[in-house]
């Protein structure tokens, strides 16, 4: 899983590298284009294009019927019924390619989330750091946190025994990869905290976790794995959510990808000979 994640992350890193210093909208546009093309190709080869074409034609025919025979109420109602029927068929024909699209699209979205979902801390910005222990008998009071030079721990630990978790609030002081050191009996875990004011950086709110967490590894490409025998189950840093500004509007990256990939898909469907 790690190798797979590394390969995909490597690819995304490669694609994003030229765009790191640019406004994220440009790299998102590129990914939207790629997503559009990939989804078109998948749709083309996994859907019954003929049936989709027929269903769409029938829907359009019955829409024309609404205006051509608008004075015949019976025909208008019948056309409405037929539009519904063929719409459902159309959706049925779109379900199969949708299922095929889910896996690659999920992987792509996970990667994009790791780049565009959260941003690093800025200097003088605070965040909550959480450490969750395994049920291995260790006491929460045995665990301490030490901050490196460019970062400070603002609060004493907040221990939540019910969840077997300790929270601290940290504050970033300087740009750079800062380090937090968790002192656990018998172990010392160093956790990188990224502090940066500009550029795209891959960050994961779930900073470290035990390798046994398959889902966490899959969903958090930037995750640092913890040894399997570590008493710590996970360490999370509450990085701020990233929002992309478009004409003073703060838009979530997923909205941009969704809209642009649909626009690109629609614009290129003729070129790829795909009936959507």
């Amino acid at each position, binding site marked *: 899983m790690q190798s797979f994640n590394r390969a995909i992350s490597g690819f995304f890193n490669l694609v994003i590298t030229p765009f790191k210093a640019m406004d994220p909208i440009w790299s998102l546009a590129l990914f939207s284009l790629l997503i559009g093309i990939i989804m078109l190709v998948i749709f083309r080869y996994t859907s019954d294009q003929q049936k989709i074409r027929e269903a769409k034609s029938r829907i359009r025919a019955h829409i024309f019927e609404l205006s051509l025979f608008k004075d015949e109420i019976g025909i208008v109602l019948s056309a409405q019924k037929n539009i519904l029927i063929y719409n459902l068929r159309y959706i049925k024909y779109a379900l199969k390619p949708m299922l095929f699209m889910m896996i690659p699209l999920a992987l792509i979205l996970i990667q994009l989330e790791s780049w565009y979902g959260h941003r690093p801390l800025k200097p003088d910005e605070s965040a909550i750091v959480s450490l969750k222990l395994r049920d291995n008998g260790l006491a929460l009071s045995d665990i301490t946190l030490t901050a490196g030079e460019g970062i400070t721990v603002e609060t004493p630990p907040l221990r939540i025994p019910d969840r077997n978790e300790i929270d601290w609030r940290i504050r970033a002081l300087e740009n750079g990869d800062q380090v937090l050191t968790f002192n656990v009996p018998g172990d010392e875990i160093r956790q990188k905290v990224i502090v940066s004011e500009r550029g795209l950086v891959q960050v994961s709110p779930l900073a470290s976790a035990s390798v046994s967490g398959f*889902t966490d590894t899959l969903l958090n490409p930037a995750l640092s794995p913890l040894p399997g025998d570590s008493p710590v189950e996970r360490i999370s840093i509450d990085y701020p959510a990233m929002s992309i500004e478009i004409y003073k509007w703060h838009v979530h990256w997923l909205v941009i990808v969704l809209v642009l990939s649909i626009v690109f898909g629609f614009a290129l469907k003729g070129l790829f000979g795909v009936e959507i």
Partner: protein
Amino acid sequence: MTSHKKFIKIAKLMPRNNLRNLPAIFVIFCALSAAFTDSAYAYIGPGAGFAFLSSFLILIVTFALAIFYLLSWPFRYALRALLRSGRRTKSSVSRVIIIGLDGMDPKLAEEFMRKGKLPNFTRLRDQGTFASLATSYPSISPVAWSSFMTGVDPSHHNIFDFITRDPCTYQPMLTSAEIGKASKVLPIGKYMIPLGKPKMKLLRKGRPFWKILGEHGIWSSVLRVPITFPPEKFNGVLLSGMCVPDLKGSQGTFAHYTTDATKNEVETGGVSRFVEIQNGVISTLLYGPDNSLVRNGKEITIPLKIKIDRGAGKALIDISGQRFELAPRKYSPWIRLAFPAGLGIKVHGICRFYINELDQGFDMYVTPINIDPENPALPISHPFVYSIYLAKLQGSFGTLGLAEDTWALNEGVIDEDAFLEQAYLLYEEREKMFFNALEKTPRGLCACVFDTTDRVQHMFFRCLDDDHPANRGKQTAKYKNVIEDLYVRMDGLIGKALEYTDDKTVLMVISDHGFTQFKRGVNLNSWLFQNGYLKLKDGGNTSGDWFENVDWDRTQAFSLGLAGIFINRKGREMKGIVEEGEDVALLKSELIRKLTELRATETGDVSIREIVDTDAASTGPYKHDAPDLLVGYNAGYRSSWTCAVGRVTERVFEDNTKHWSGDHCVDPKIVPGVIFSNRKIMKENPGLTDMAPTVMKLFGVGIPGYMKGKPLFDEMPGVPKQTGGEFGDEEKKSARAV
């Protein structure tokens, strides 16, 4: 909650809740996609995402439309009632169905009914009416159907033939429509950008009765009635029929690709192209319309690649971005073509492919490129979207006026079986359209003309006469029953149509003319030449097509098309020499006398039964532009193929050896049409011009005084007699002669 809001909500949740919820969200989305289609698109990208999004929008918009139409119906009804141009009495029927079976012959119908082959026609006869229906003079489809729809004779509607001569050039021109380029163009480099629509003019005069019905609030669905191109506006839907051109602007130009150099000559109706197979592949071009977007534009072409797989017994055809397999002796479906004219503009057409030979060489026929009904280059329906609607509903369909490719069979490019298959494929498309129109016309007029009866009889009438010259070298026994089968098939159509009738429905099955044998052609131009009325230059004895080499300065009369003879009148024709008045009258009477005595050289038969002086026999305003003499040939005779195209040949009489072996361009009394109805008609000797007044009376609409015919039905049973003046008085008073 709208799909958009739901999506935003979920998207906002994501960063906070971390991506560990993604699998759950996927599952939720799958479930939502089944239950709420609008919610699913967030995770399915441009393909299915767009599908779901558009489905949802379609549902919303169409639901709103339906509600709007329902709520606004009373207001629209009231508005229409206010805007109606004329009053009408109570309709005695709710629906009139007219099925036109072009060329259905009363004698053959009677014979097949006697043999018990036509139970539905027999039922109509027994229940209502079966009679001959007087046709027009001349008895040619465009003329006859124009009389049907306008209720007047040809001198009022101005259609005397398929073609007439341009009085300025003596060259042929279509009688039905004029299609020209846009009046203004913007020249940019090699391009000529049209700054308006191309000029299109329907040359038929008079008003079709469905237009008058529409003015009285009666809806009509009119399908494939000849001479309705370009379509006129009225209250209803219409799909144009005979005389709709193909994409090249002709009345049908097929393409033929062959590796046999000896079969590489086609005289009429198409173009044959020699092709070579290289490494199992033929690379050639399909020729489309002339490119009017560029100066002196040539035919637009698209590459046509045919990969031959003899082992599998099929060919792989690659054209216009489509690839399909085709086995020999099977028609492809309609293939949509896009001819690039430049500047991103494409001209759309459709055609079918048919491989005649794959084993020994290669031979393929391509139908004329029809205007694509889904993307029409010219308007072929009213409203414009009606053809698009039909194509979306039932798939592509042939739009060419003369869609059954009789010339391909005449020229031997396809055989009888291929022709029949093509004709019946087209018939099936029209049958679907017709029954759809019936369903969509619960009240009003539904009229549809089927051409199949005409085309099949034209091509197989020889099989009814063993002595027909066209039987030489052709199979006859195999096709002996083709015409009977045709009538049986039409009987099936009538049976299905009868299921749509009730007490308030009048069904009429009519034909525009009957049929007779066409064994010998008469070349009137040759006769005129031999008798000194037509002169050739340079002492020649023959001329080429379209009066090549005719000396107009010395020619008194000539023939073009199928209808008759034109006098080269001074002041009317560009180089006219016959003075109006006494000279014209004398010449006409001389020609009538001599030609009615004309006997076939070999058989001694009378070849012309009568000749009508158009001027004397007509009252309409367009009689002066018509052929001066209308020739009524005897059964078995017709204007010869060479005469119709303005050629002078050595012989006046020539055997007709073409597949086109039956005809109706004879004395109209020989070839009346037919009328069947589920009601008894009261009028004796019904005629085509009676149809318009009949339908108008059935709907309680006054009959314009200029209409020549009379209603066929008397009072309808169960309908109270109207009081307050003679039927149609108001209309007669206000009716304006054409």
